[in-house]
């Protein structure tokens, strides 16, 4: 682990978090003792082979599934009124029966924010993701990229302490994905909310993250981590630097072992 220049306060601390699923075929150990600290205002990317439990980790942090053992500590003393997390899912998890505006309003509505106020907040974030023209449209009228913009705006509008993103652009075509990565960078760099971002793309993790945590094949645990200190605001042109290529290759060497291990396990 490369030591960083200074350490901001911890936002989330995971200590020995593990998860065991009981299925009809027997027990599956998804996570085995994850130790991980996410710092305030950090963009942390988690990368690992498919099936390594990285989505499970995110769901545990989001309180969508219980952990089997270990500690999960949130340091939220300064922001107690704000909701803890808001998640952007890989699939198009926006409500088909709500317009773009009402989708973005959802979290605020659940928290009882008055209609006028939540509409103002929602419209602000809809503008940020460039969907103003589609405010009154229903999801079935939108493309995949637009749906993920709605999901992003919905998460941001809820103003969570931590933004959780589970391969949010994984289902999009490569060009739309690149475009949305850049927009996410632009939006995030405005106020630097703590982000826990799961991806299987090294490229994406390097472009977006301050730090990359590499997970092992199942049962998932932290293998190693990398400091990514490209200057911010970040531009896509960092991909053309030698450093980017060197880091990419270094991470791939470590990731490759895990991918191969998980493939062997699949065969068995």
């Amino acid at each position, binding site marked *: 682990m490369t030591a960083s220049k200074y350490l901001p306060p911890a936002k989330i601390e995971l200590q020995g978090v593990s998860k065991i699923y009981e299925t009809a075929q027997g027990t599956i150990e998804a996570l085995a003792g994850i130790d991980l600290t996410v710092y305030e205002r950090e963009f942390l990317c988690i990368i690992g082979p498919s099936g390594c439990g990285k989505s499970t980790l995110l*769901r545990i942090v*989001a*309180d*969508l599934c219980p952990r089997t053992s270990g500690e999960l500590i949130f340091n939220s003393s300064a922001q107690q009124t704000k*909701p803890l*997390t*808001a*998640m952007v*899912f890989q*699939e198009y*998890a*926006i*409500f*088909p*029966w*709500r317009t773009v505006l009402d989708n973005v309003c*959802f*979290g605020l509505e*659940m*928290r009882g924010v008055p209609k006028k106020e939540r509409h103002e907040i929602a419209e602000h974030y809809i503008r940020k993701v460039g969907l103003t023209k589609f405010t009154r449209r*229903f*999801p*079935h009228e939108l493309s995949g990229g637009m749906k993920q913009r709605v*999901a992003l705006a*919905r998460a941001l509008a*809820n103003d969570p302490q931590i933004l959780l993103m589970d391969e949010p652009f994984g289902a999009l075509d490569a060009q739309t994905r690149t475009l949305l990565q850049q927009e996410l960078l632009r939006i995030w760099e405005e106020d630097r909310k703590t982000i826990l971002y799961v991806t299987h793309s090294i490229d994406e993790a390097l472009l977006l993250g301050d730090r990359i945590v590499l997970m092992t094949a199942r049962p998932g645990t932290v293998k190693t981590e990398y400091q990514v200190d490209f200057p911010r605001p970040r531009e896509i042109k960092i991909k053309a630097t030698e450093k980017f290529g060197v880091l990419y290759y270094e991470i791939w060497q470590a990731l490759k072992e895990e991918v191969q291990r998980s493939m062997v396990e699949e065969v068995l």
Partner: protein
Amino acid sequence: MTAKGLEWVKRNAKYDVLLVLSPIMSLILWEILVRVGLMDHRFFPAPTTVIGTLFRIIVNGQLLDHVSISLYRMAIGFLLGSFVGIVLGLLMGWLKIFYAIFDPLISAVYPIPKTALLPVIFLIFGIGELSKIVIVAIAAFFMAVINTTAGVLSIDPVIIDAARNFGARRGKLFRYVFMPGALPSIFTALRLALGASLLVIVAAEFVASNEGIGYLIWISWQTLATERMYAGLIVIAILGILSSYGLKKLRNYLIPWSVDVRERM
């Protein structure tokens, strides 16, 4: 005809004419065959004769009496049965305990054709108005409960996760996710329930009634008044088409966010 087939035909303008012409030509052919004596007019009265009879029973009020009593029985039974079915279906999709209690019972009774239950219903409720309303309610109930349950269960789990993550739990989850999410299935449920209602009310009126559209058809057959029998069948077809069309319009109005694939068939 499948949606694709129909679209293909529509794209080819020259077939447009055939779409209209084919049923008209069939009716004209039927008329001619009866008029020249090639078809027995006692079994297959000419279309013009049937229309004439239909017109006559409309004018003398006979039809309205029969149709209104049938509609009354249907409406009460349909509303009752589908309301209970939708409520129970929502509960079964929402809470596992309701599912565990009711699913085995429903699965056991559902495969029995509802018309086969008529003797049981007559036994319990007599052969008065109540028994007809009850049998319609039962038929509507099963269609409603099964489709509503399926509707709730088919809501994408990731949507439910998203709602929970944004603070919707328990009652809020039900109100803001399960109810709207099941709405398209509820409309399918209503359409099927309406079809089932029409089916059983006619059957019930065949066997145990002195009035109603089913009775009209049955008595016409028994007295060999075939032109009136066909007139009754036309009325039932119109009732079925109108109610289905009305629900479709209502659906499009109430749930503009959902595109119904069946609609284009």
